[in-house]
């Protein structure tokens, strides 16, 4: 075919195809647009199975970038909802590369990594989201949790603090979570401050008194911690709170009262290794080691740490308890 003939062939071919096919993708784009409309409707109706069914056909139409961006958002979240975190990660990773300005994908990836136990991967993604959306409550909270999981408690405090301020101190579960992090950081003042806010958000809950009690116990002030934990018990007379009170009595140098509190739990009938070890320690601290022994033996039915504490008090060789902790 000569050059002239080749040019003529292409001109004829072009004339046979509508111009919009070159500029807008033509029928295929229309079809993709219609599928995307269906995906949107299905997503908004909460029908993820339909979204996922439609996504294959949608991509077959080779839709333009803007359409694909929207579809990736629906598909990724539907994979998440269906429990296919690995597939969701694949979609979000691809979408992040194609649409780096869209923080939805970074945000979703960060949440998945955070929940899957990879806080180190979640941190840079949350930071990316917050560089665009500083007031995103979930991203602030997600970053706080990721930092907390890694042990960066000062940084966790910064982002928990932002999250609870953005929530106007109204979300009680977040406040309790933040208070717990501050107890772990031994930031007693902040823990008590947050407990105060929590008590305003969800009054009548034992948690806030417990935070205050633990803040005082953490400083060795068991005498002032006791009335607070007793207030918590009045609001929620749970076994663990009662035994925590017994432990405060023991740590505060009141072994007889601690033993009485443990006895009350043991009298309830069922074997209670924690109550047993408290009673055993109370007797041990009074020099009544022979009497303590059966209670300490009973503590072996508890968890591994409790059993080792009991063994240590019963005089088991130290080396036997230390070796497993080494790495």
């Amino acid at each position, binding site marked *: 075919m000569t050059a002239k003939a080749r040019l003529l062939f292409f001109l004829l071919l072009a004339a046979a195809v509508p111009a919009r096919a070159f500029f807008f993708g033509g029928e295929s784009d229309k079809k993709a647009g219609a599928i995307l409309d269906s995906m949107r409707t299905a997503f908004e109706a909460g029908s993820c199975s339909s979204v996922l069914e439609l996504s294959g056909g949608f991509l077959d139409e080779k839709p333009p970038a*803007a359409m694909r961006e929207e579809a990736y958002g629906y598909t990724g979240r539907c994979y998440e909802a269906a429990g296919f975190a690995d597939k969701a990660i694949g979609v979000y990773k691809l979408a992040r590369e194609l649409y780096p300005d869209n923080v939805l994908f970074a945000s979703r990836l960060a949440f998945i990594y955070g929940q899957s136990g990879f806080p180190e991967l979640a941190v840079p993604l949350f930071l990316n989201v917050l560089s665009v959306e500083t007031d995103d409550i979930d991203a602030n909270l997600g970053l706080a949790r990721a930092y907390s999981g890694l042990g960066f408690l000062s940084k966790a405090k910064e982002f928990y603090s932002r999250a609870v301020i953005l929530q106007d101190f109204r979300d009680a579960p977040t406040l309790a979570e933040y208070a717990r992090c501050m107890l*772990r950081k031994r930031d007693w003042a902040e823990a008590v401050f947050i407990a105060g806010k929590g008590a305003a958000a969800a009054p009548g809950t034992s948690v806030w008194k417990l*935070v205050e009690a633990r803040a005082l116990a953490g400083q060795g002030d068991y005498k002032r911690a006791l009335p607070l934990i007793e207030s918590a018990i009045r609001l929620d007379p749970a076994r663990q709170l009662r035994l925590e009170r017994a432990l405060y009595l023991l740590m505060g140098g009141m072994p007889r009262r601690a033993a009485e509190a443990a006895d009350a739990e043991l009298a309830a009938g069922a074997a209670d290794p924690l109550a047993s070890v408290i009673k055993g320690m109370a007797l041990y601290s009074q020099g009544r080691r022979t009497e303590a022994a059966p209670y300490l033996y009973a503590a072996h039915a*508890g968890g591994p740490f409790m059993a080792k504490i009991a063994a*240590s008090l019963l005089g088991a060789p130290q080396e036997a308890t230390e070796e497993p902790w080494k790495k």
Partner: protein
Amino acid sequence: MLLVLVSGPYVVSAQEARPVERGPRQSASSLPLSGEETDDELLRDVLWTRLSTSRPPARPSVGLALSGGGARGFAHTGVLEALEYAGFPVDYISGTSMGSVIGSLYASGAPVSDIWKFGRQASELKISRDFKSIRLLSLLITDKLITPTYINRFIESRLGGLTFEKLKIPFACSAMDMRTGEKIIFSEGPLAVAVRASVNLPGIFAPVEYGHRYLVDGGVVDFIPIGAARRLGADWVLASVAESESSRMPENVLMSLLQVIDIRGSLLARSAEREAGFLIKPQVGDISVADFDRCEEAGEAGLVEASRRMDEAREALLIYSAPRLVQKL
């Protein structure tokens, strides 16, 4: 909360199909403080409140031994931060090489945040230059060892004028006498010269002359100075070890020498580890002895690893301490 696609022409509600993306949400009556803990955790945490607020002899005394490791040793800073968060008692500190720098700063009362600053500024402080300035050809031609100007300047600026006796926490550091191969443990007298000796790489930097001895880095004979902490009076020792994990081939003769010293230190560490009550080994990856530009990264690795293992460390100390702690209630 609404997540939006910021670059698209649409706003997508994430409410309908959103999976669980937050932590467990509880009703106000079961908030995440009580009821989630096991009995073991409750017992541990309350016993810990007593231990961390007691002083010897009401509990056993605790030593902290910080290994050598050059820039990797900055991981100890993260370990110190995690220990502070946990309220872990530190009654005595010992250090070798970089461990002696970090340990002496901490023992002098410097806040951990200041020690982090040192790591962040390590490149500005030109510490790497002491390594970069090493020219092997000139070493061979002149047959003279180098004086680590910037390292010495840093130590003098932070520790000059201090003595071991003036420190807030009793401290000891290790060095080696180049002539006899003896392990020398410093725990009294001027501090700066002892730390300079402890951090002084043999074969590259000129030995520190002090008390009729020619002193070099203690890492060659005492990579984890657990014995030094015990000599100070510690009943139980937690050791932080910044071991080499690098499988990189050294690029030059100098790096080969550093790597040999490092490997020798790691071998020593293996036998010393058995003496520790608990070990924390930060995963510092491929950070090498001389990577002073990566100090902060090493510190973060230390914080992550120490945080990960802190509950185990607390339990180990509590199990060891239980008889004395309960007896003294």
